[in-house]
């Protein structure tokens, strides 16, 4: 079950001028979380690295699943789902964290006066995305604020935001840098509760993942890929407006609101993408373990057979900085 032709053997990058084909699975429709990818693609960084990158559009399956099954080589991930999948033995590993901190938050309409703090969410309706982490995370925040953590959970996936705007649900988890701006531009501004304000561990807002076995067998290609992609993201940090334009040009049928894309990219680039040392993409044991321990204690981690994990796995095996830094 392997569709990516290039994954068979390590053809030392650009040795004979032939590009190595790799596939990249997206988590959503193209948005500013993906700017680095499209910049690297459009500016030819991948080609320079001897790579022919094919982007697989979002299709309702987690990139983790696709990468694990060999249907994709790389992809976007989020720390919760990536953690679950790896606990269950998925053949994935994080190789870069383009967003270093929470960029999502608990969001509700700004005009919803009934909600002043997380405990007011009790008894209301949450529009979710089907990830097992959502309810425990929200409950932790609500309980930390003195609530009971009892609320209605409706899995709506891609329709969650419309449901919020139309008032069918009360809260959801938007990306402040994407849906947040979109909502503002379209006249339904939102307000947020930040997870870390309620003692919740920090989280990488965006991950790049790869197939662990494949990467082990093709370290050179992987390195070339990772660094080319990082270059794209770094360009986006340096030149938000220019890279926003590239993103839009690459996705003319989806991204039509210039203001949204530009504003979003400016916000991301300035506030979210570099760590406190001003470095890009690196991950630490502490941040992986911080969120991982919460999931472990909440009983969310299960092994390959579905048995709940009781002991912490080796968090450091969940990610690697080696392809980015070498």
């Amino acid at each position, binding site marked *: 079950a392997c569709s990516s032709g290039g994954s068979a053997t390590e053809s030392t990058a650009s040795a004979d001028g032939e590009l190595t084909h790799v596939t990249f699975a997206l988590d959503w429709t193209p948005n500013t979380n993906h700017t680095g990818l499209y910049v690297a693609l459009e500016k030819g960084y991948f080609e320079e690295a001897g790579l022919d990158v094919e982007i697989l559009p979002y299709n309702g399956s987690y990139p983790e699943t696709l990468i694990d099954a060999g249907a994709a080589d790389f992809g976007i991930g989020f720390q919760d789902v990536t953690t679950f999948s790896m606990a269950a033995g998925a053949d994935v590993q994080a190789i870069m964290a383009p967003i270093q901190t929470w960029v999502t938050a608990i969001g509700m309409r700004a005009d919803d006066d009934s909600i002043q703090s997380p405990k007011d969410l009790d008894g209301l309706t949450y529009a979710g995305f089907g*990830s*097992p982490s959502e309810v425990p995370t929200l409950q932790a925040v609500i309980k930390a604020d003195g609530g009971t953590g009892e609320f209605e959970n*409706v899995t709506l996936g*891609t329709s969650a935001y419309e*449901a919020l705007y139309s008032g069918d649900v009360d809260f959801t988890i938007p990306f402040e840098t994407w849906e947040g701006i979109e909502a503002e531009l379209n006249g339904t501004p939102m307000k947020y509760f930040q997870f870390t304000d309620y003692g919740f561990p920090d989280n990488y807002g965006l991950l790049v993942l790869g197939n662990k076995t494949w990467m082990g067998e093709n370290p050179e290609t992987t390195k070339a890929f990772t660094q080319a992609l990082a270059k794209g993201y770094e360009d986006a940090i340096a030149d938000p407006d220019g890279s926003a334009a590239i993103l839009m040009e690459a996705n003319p049928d989806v991204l039509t609101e210039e203001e949204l894309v530009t504003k979003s990219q400016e916000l991301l680039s300035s506030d979210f993408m570099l760590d406190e040392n001003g470095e890009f993409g690196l991950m630490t044991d502490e941040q992986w373990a911080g969120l991982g321990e919460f999931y472990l204690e909440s009983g969310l981690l299960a092994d390959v057979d*579905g048995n709940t994990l009781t002991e912490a796995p080796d968090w450091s095996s969940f990610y690697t900085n080696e392809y980015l830094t070498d």
Partner: protein
Amino acid sequence: MKTKRMTRGGFWGTVIPPVAIVLVLLVGWELAVTLTGMRPQVLPAPSRVFVEGFERADIIWGHTLATLQVTLIGFAFSLIVAWAIAIAIDFSGVLRRGLMPLLVASQTIPIIAIAPLMIIWFGFGLLPKILVVALVTFFPIVVGLIEGFNKADRETSNLLRSMGAGRWKEFVYVRLPSAMPSFFTALRISITYAVVGAIFAEYVGAQQGLGIFMSTQKNAFRTDLVLAAVAVTAVLSISLYLLTFLIERVVIPWSFKERKARGAR
């Protein structure tokens, strides 16, 4: 004399072949998975699907009930709509010519694209799900009913009219009863789509139900439980399918007896 082709029927003759085929397929699958050492996230062995599904039988059962509720309410609604449309069409040629192309067109709508919109339009309560189930199932019933009503031919109509019946009495005394066998045939086709439609509707947004269960289990990388739910769906569909035979026998015993008598001659 009119039986088409001799078939060795009987209970065992009907039950053994499909069961045998299913068993062969399952064993082959089990062997393939164990021999290639495939990861259960990609393709779990049937034994695993069964064991894991059984372990969570109570949870699955809860979701099944929710799905069944959506299915039945949606299907009931579908029946009402289908009967109303079919009767209206039976009484008016203009309506028939006006509506039929639209009904056909309605079947070409990609529900996968419309279902999420329905949630925006109608919320995530029962309504959009009922609408999806109805949209998926009403058409075969309408077609079956219209065909059935027309089984009553010109001569029967003349007979009734000669007795002094108007259009309405003709409908009640002839067209309606003679449509029942086609109605049940259509019902059977339709009801197998009903469960799938309900799961579909749940998949795009629900709190409970096999659809949401599948979607969550998929997100939790539990392919085995997804397949367990698929199996439950199939069983549910087939049960409803078989149920229509029972209902048919109760509602129109004459049809069944007649068929049997004709077959036996």
